[in-house]
C-alpha cells in the first residue's frame, strides 16, 4: 500500500483532535455498538481472523466474546437470511463481506426479502440489518474481486445505501446504520483504508441521506462518493492552481440521495461533474446526471460529465488497471471540458 495521505481538508477537526485510521474508525463504531447494545452482533467470513477484516473488526471477538463477533461458513445467501431472521427476532446483526462481489450471492435474500419484508407486511415488522461490503481494488484483484456495485445496489426500495469517504463518516455512518430500523448497506472502498482522519471518541451518528460539501467553490460542482471524493478534492486543489474554483460535494448516501444538496450546489456553479468508482452505464453518475437534467436544467451552463470506470470488467494487469481506474486527472480533464479556461 502507498503511504497514508492525509488530506487536511478532510479533517473536520482541530489539530488537537484525535486522528484515527479509517479501518480503526469502523472498528471503534462496532466496538461501541457491541458495548452499548446487547442486540448487536457482528458476523462474516473472517471477522475473527488475525487480520480482522482489514482491521475493521480486529479483536472484537476477544473483547465481546465469540457469540458477538463470529465467523460464518461460506454460504453468503443463507447467512444473509440468518441475519434477516435474527433481526426479526429482535437482534441487530452486522454482516460483513470483504469483497462486494459476493453480494451477488445474497441478492435474493437482501433484495427479495430484507428490503421488502417491512413493506409486504405493511410495517408489522422491520429488518434492522447492516450489510457491510468492501470494494476491492488493485494488485490484480480482477473481474470477480473488485466490482463497485453501488449503481446496482442503490436501486432497491427498502434498502438504504451509504458510502463513507472519511474516517469520521465511516464511524458515524456505521453507528447510524446500526441504529436504523431498516436494512442498510454500507459499501466501503478499500482505497479509503489508507486514510486517517479526526474521529471523536464519543458515540455519534452521521445522518443517512445527507450529503456534505467538502469544499466550497463557484465554478463547477464535482459530486462524488467514497474514494472518488478524495480524488475530487485532489483535483480541486490542482484546479485551483489554474484558477478554477471547484465545489466538491460528497454524496455520502446513495439511497436516500441528497438531491437538494446537489441541486443547490449546481444552482451556484452551473456546471456538474459526477464521479464514481463504479461503471458508467446505469450507475450512480447516471442517476445524479439525470437529476440535473430533470430538476437542474435551468442551472446547467454546460453538459454534465461523468467520470467513472469504463464499461469493462476489471482487468488484472497493472497497466490495464491504470487505464481502468478513474482518478484525479480524469476529473480535471472533465472539468476543463466544461469550464472555460481562467488564465
Amino acid at each position, binding site marked *: 500500500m502507498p503511504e497514508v495521505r492525509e488530506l487536511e481538508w478532510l479533517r473536520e477537526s482541530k489539530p488537537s483532535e484525535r486522528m484515527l485510521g479509517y479501518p480503526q474508525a469502523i472498528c471503534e463504531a462496532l466496538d461501541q455498538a457491541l458495548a452499548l447494545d446487547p442486540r448487536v*452482533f457482528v458476523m462474516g467470513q473472517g471477522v475473527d481472523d488475525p487480520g480482522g477484516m482489514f482491521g475493521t473488526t480486529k479483536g472484537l471477538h476477544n473483547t465481546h466474546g465469540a*457469540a458477538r463477533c463470529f465467523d460464518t*461458513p461460506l*454460504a453468503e*445467501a*443463507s*447467512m*444473509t*437470511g*440468518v*441475519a*434477516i*431472521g*435474527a*433481526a*426479526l*427476532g*429482535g*437482534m441487530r*446483526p452486522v454482516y460483513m463481506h470483504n469483497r462486494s462481489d459476493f453480494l451477488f450471492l445474497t441478492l*435474493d*435474500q437482501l433484495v*427479495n*426479502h430484507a428490503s421488502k*419484508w*417491512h*413493506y*409486504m*407486511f*405493511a*410495517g*408489522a*415488522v*422491520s*429488518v*434492522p440489518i447492516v450489510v457491510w461490503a468492501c470494494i476491492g481494488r488493485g494488485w490484480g484483484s480482477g473481474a470477480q474481486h473488485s466490482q463497485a456495485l453501488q449503481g446496482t445496489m442503490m436501486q432497491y*426500495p*427498502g434498502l*438504504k445505501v451509504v458510502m463513507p469517504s472519511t474516517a469520521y463518516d465511516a464511524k458515524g455512518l456505521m453507528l447510524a446504520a446500526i441504529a436504523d*430500523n*431498516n436494512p442498510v448497506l454500507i459499501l466501503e472502498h478499500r482505497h479509503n483504508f489508507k486514510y486517517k482522519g479526526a474521529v471523536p471518541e464519543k458515540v455519534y451518528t452521521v445522518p443517512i441521506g445527507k450529503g456534505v460539501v467538502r469544499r466550497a467553490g463557484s465554478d463547477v460542482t464535482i459530486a462524488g462518493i467514497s474514494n472518488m471524493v478524495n480524488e475530487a478534492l485532489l483535483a480541486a486543489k490542482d484546479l485551483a492552481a489554474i484558477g478554477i474554483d471547484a465545489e466538491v460535494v460528497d454524496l455520502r448516501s446513495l439511497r436516500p440521495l441528497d438531491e437538494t444538496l446537489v441541486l443547490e450546489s449546481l444552482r451556484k456553479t452551473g456546471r456538474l461533474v459526477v464521479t464514481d468508482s463504479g461503471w458508467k452505464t446505469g450507475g450512480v453518475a447516471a442517476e445524479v446526471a439525470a437529476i440535473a437534467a430533470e430538476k437542474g436544467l435551468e442551472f446547467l451552463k454546460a453538459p454534465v460529465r461523468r467520470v467513472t470506470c469504463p464499461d469493462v470488467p476489471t482487468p488484472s494487469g497493472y497497466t490495464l488497471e491504470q487505464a481502468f481506474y478513474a482518478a484525479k486527472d480524469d476529473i480535471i480533464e472533465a472539468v476543463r471540458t466544461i469550464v472555460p479556461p481562467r488564465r
Partner: protein
Amino acid sequence: MNIPRETLLSLYHDMLRTRRVEESIESLYHEDQMKTPIHLYIGQEAIAAGVCAHLRDDDPIFTTYRSHGQYLSKGGDLNSMIAELHCKETGCSKGRGGSMHLIDLSAGHYGSSAIVGGCLPIATGMAFAKKAQGSDAVTVTFFGDGATEEGIFYESVNYAMLKKLPVVFVLENNEWAVCSHVSTRKIGENLFHGADPEHLYTAKVDGNAVLDVYEEAGRAFAHARSGKGPAFLECMTYRIRGHAGSGSDADLGYRSPEDIEVWAKRCPIRSFRAWLLREEVETPIELERMDAQIETEIENAFAFATASPLPKGEDLLLHIYGE
C-alpha cells in the same frame, strides 16, 4: 401415545376449519373479489394441524405462498387473512401483501415468502436469535419439495446443525412443483435423512395421517426445545388441486386423474373423522355442530372482508421504511 381428548378434537377442528376456508375461497374465487393468486392447501391440512398443535404463541413460524393452513393452525386471525385475500386495508398485511404474504405476530407467524426456499435461512436466523436470547422457543419453517432443490435449503440446515439451533424444518412433500413431478427434479432420498442423528433429528411421516404427524412432530419439538439442535420432518402428501387458482387441474394432462382420485380418497380429515367416531371420541352430532360453527365463522370473515375498505392509492408510498 396418549393424546388428550381436547387435543384430538382440536386437531380435527384445525383441519376441518382450514378445509372449509379453502373451499370457501375456492367457491368464491371466480367472483374476482380476491384479486391475488391463491395456492390451496386442500389435502395437506394434517401437516399444519399436527405440527402447530405443539407450538406456543411465542414459537415463531415462517411459511410460503401456500400457507393458509399453517397460518390458521398457528392461530392466525381468520378475518385478517380473508381480508388480505381481498387486499383490503383490514387485511393482515393491509392489502400490500395479498395471499402470498400473510403475517400475524400475535400468533407468532412472522411472514411468508413467494420465493421458493426464501424463508429457510430466515427461520434459521430467528432460531439463532431465540437461542442467543436464552429463550426455549422453537422456530418452524414449512416448505415444499421444490424448495429442497434450492441450495439455500442445504446451507440453512447445515448452519442449523453447526450451531445446534432450535429450528424444525417441515418439508411438505406433495410430489408436485407446479406441473413437475418430484421424480423429474430429484433423485433418491433426501440426503438429510442420512445426517448424523447427533446433528439433526430426522423423520419421515405420512402427511395425511394427522396423528402420525402429531406424534413425529412432537418428537422433533422435544428434541429442538431441549437444546439438542434442529430437526427435519418430511411429510409425504399430495397436492390435490392445481398449483394456483381454484379447481381441479386433472384435465391438463400432466398428471393422472387416477392419482388425484387415489389421494383425494386418502383425505386426512375424512379418515380422522371416522377414527374419532370409531374411537367414540366425539359424537356425529357434535362434529356437525363444529362444522356449522366453522361455517358461520367463515361467513363472518368474508362479510368482514367484503365490508372492509380498499387501500387508498395515495397511500402507495407508506411502509417503505420502518421508523
